[in-house]
């Protein structure tokens, strides 16, 4: 399903349609994430991917233009590059622990403390919240700062300017 949507996105030239497909893609992704027990992530993906991103993209498209220009893109080189990258990952993933292997290092190292002690140490039963906000709270501070950076950056870029800036370009 996701594959089909993505293929449709590649071929679709009407950008509005692409954005809508992107929303569908995000919902599918969220479904997969729920199936993988990542409820927090799924919720975020649904609200961000299908909600905020779509709104932003539509807003931006309104300001720009809905159609992608028709011209033969260079197909070969990008395809080679992306497939090469994919192959590198295939090569790497062959050596990884199998799906749902409880003895894989990620399940035996570091994480057990999060699961076993989250109630005792932080009083928060949702381990995702306790890791996010406390054990690795500093990452979340960084994350908030990233959002802040983006916000301030958009303010800086889109604020109305009084001085004409084209003098240099004309």
């Amino acid at each position, binding site marked *: 399903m*996701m*594959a089909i949507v*993505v293929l449709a*996105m*590649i071929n679709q030239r009407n950008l509005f349609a*692409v954005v809508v497909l992107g929303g569908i893609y995000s919902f599918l*992704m969220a479904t997969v*994430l729920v199936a*993988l*027990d*990542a*409820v*927090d*992530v799924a919720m*975020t993906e649904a609200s*961000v*991917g299908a909600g905020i*991103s779509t709104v*932003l*993209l539509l807003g931006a498209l309104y*300001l*720009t*233009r809905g159609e*992608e*220009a028709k*011209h033969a893109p*260079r197909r070969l080189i*990008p*395809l080679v*590059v*992306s*497939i090469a990258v*994919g192959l590198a*990952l*295939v090569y790497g*993933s062959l050596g990884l622990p*199998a*799906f*749902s292997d*409880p003895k*894989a290092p*990620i399940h035996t190292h570091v994480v057990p403390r*999060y*699961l076993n002690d989250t109630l005792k140490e932080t009083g928060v*039963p*949702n*381990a*995702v919240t306790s*890791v*996010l906000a406390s054990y690795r709270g500093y*990452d979340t501070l960084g*994350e908030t700062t*990233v*959002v802040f950076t*983006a*916000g301030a*950056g958009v303010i800086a*870029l*889109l604020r109305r300017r009084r001085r004409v800036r084209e003098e240099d*370009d004309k």
Partner: protein
Amino acid sequence: MSLASHYSYWVTIFLMIAGLYIVIARGNLVKKLIGLGIFQTSVYLLYIAPGKLIGGTAPIVAEGFRTYSNPLPHVLILTAIVVGVATLALGLAIVVRIREAYGTIEEDEILAQDRREEEQV
């Protein structure tokens, strides 16, 4: 190490190739950003899927459950999603400005305009 056990990796890899392809091959600035988004989401699966334990539940500690899926990748990916949307917002803001300055959001037209400008100087 059967094929099926690595199924999630294959999905990841397909999404990644598709996203990267859109970014490199397409000339439309907005579409490039969308491709970038797909490329980033492919990473989510790479992290999340191995964290799943069959028979486990979401990592919310409660009575009656013994096995939980791994919470750490979830946290990392939450951060990655946020970073992704922040990048998207910023990228779109730049695209809007480019559109105002050049009147187009096609990469080749922009480059052509730049070239013309340089020849004039």
